[in-house]
């Protein structure tokens, strides 16, 4: 169902949402008297009835309700004094006119582009791959085109991060919460993670706490992990991506 068809039963109005929008815009109903909160509640009720969220309809609703909210807030809140003095009806009209003219230019250019597109679409280009003998780049046809400095400065950019604060004077702590977050992020982006590859370069304490985090994730059913043999690689998978759920071993 489109948001516009949402049935409303409000104090000042009963009927579909888009009709309300229309009469508000025609100023047949004073927007100040419409309880926008009720509309939102009506919409949420409707969403709850539906098993799933129709993203397009939800977006449409948000756009409509947002524009109503803005309109209403403008009605309710007096404009700043100076703004009112500065912008007489004539100036306001001029400003609006300038914006409309600018938009119109691109609206009409858009119509022109749409025509070009309709015409250009009729021409089809070849998409066949090159014959194999032409696919390999000839090394002797290559001439220097890049400055090695580009690479050095790129490495420099990657090295140049604020230095790690010196924490040698305090006992190092590694937060379980943070390790949980790190592992979750990693698992969110990949289908499987190798422990050594991901955390092998961390210090021992971090590795240990990470292992704790893994135990926790396993307990919560968010991840599974396996180790084929003692000291062998540990493979971690998010729970959703693995059909079977091997236990912890090794």
């Amino acid at each position, binding site marked *: 169902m489109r948001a516009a068809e949402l049935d409303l039963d409000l104090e000042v109005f009963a009927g579909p949402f888009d009709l309300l929008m229309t009469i508000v815009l025609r100023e047949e109903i004073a927007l100040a008297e419409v309880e926008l909160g009720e509309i939102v509640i009506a919409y949420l009720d409707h969403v709850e009835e539906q098993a799933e969220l129709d993203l397009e309809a939800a977006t449409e609703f948000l756009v409509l309700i947002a524009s109503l909210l803005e309109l209403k807030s403008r009605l309710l809140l007096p404009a700043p004094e100076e703004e009112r003095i500065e912008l007489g*009806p*004539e100036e*306001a*009209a*001029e400003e*609006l*006119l300038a*914006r*409309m*003219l*600018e*938009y*119109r*230019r*691109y*609206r*009409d*250019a*858009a*119509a*022109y*582009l*749409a025509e*070009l*597109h*309709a*015409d*250009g*679409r*009729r*021409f*089809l*280009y*070849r*998409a066949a791959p*090159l*014959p194999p003998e*032409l696919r390999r780049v000839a090394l002797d046809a290559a001439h220097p085109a890049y400055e090695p400095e580009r690479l050095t400065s790129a490495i420099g950019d990657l090295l140049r991060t604020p230095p790690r604060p010196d924490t040698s004077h305090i006992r190092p702590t590694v937060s379980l919460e943070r390790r949980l977050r790190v592992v979750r992020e990693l698992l969110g982006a990949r289908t499987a993670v190798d422990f050594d590859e991901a955390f092998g370069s961390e210090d021992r304490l971090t590795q240990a706490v990470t292992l704790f985090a893994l135990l926790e994730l396993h307990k919560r059913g968010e991840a599974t992990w396996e180790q084929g043999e003692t000291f062998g690689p540990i493979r971690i998978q998010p729970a959703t991506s693995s059909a079977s759920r091997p236990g912890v071993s090794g």
Partner: protein
Amino acid sequence: MSDLERIVEALLFLAPEPVGTAELAEACDATEAEIDRALDLLGGSLTGRGVVLREVAGGHALAAYPDAEQAARRLLARPKTPPLTQAQAETLAIVAYLQPVSRPEIARIRGVSSESAVQTLTERGLIAESGRSRFGAVIYRTTSLFERLFGLAGLDALPDPARFDASPADEAELRERLLRAGEQRTS
């Protein structure tokens, strides 16, 4: 058909992208004037054939003769590319004329957020991100695919945008109407 013409035809047949005159001259070991002449002759000799010569995206390219489009879509099972929606066409026009242009600027001119149009145009390869503005907003440009699909020899082949401006009479009428509306509201 001269040897040079044959080779130019063969190169355009093979090339996956439009090829510029200078590149053709270099590959054929000929002058640009010679290439221009060969292209002229080639274009002429293709009249009435199944392949046409087009000048697009800063180069020359062969394309199938448009009347074969339907048969080609049947053979290659290629769906027709959908036409542009109003929002997409407007967004594309703004990027084409104002590039490089940021997303907030597009939204300001269109008066509505244009996220989904920008995204679709990016997915279709008609516009592409091209760095960031001073204020960190992603900025966009049109791509050479845009020029190819719209049959534009280059960006400068776009007509002067002033051509789309309202006539002075239209502008006067619009102003008049706005002023009247303003007066009604204040009275």
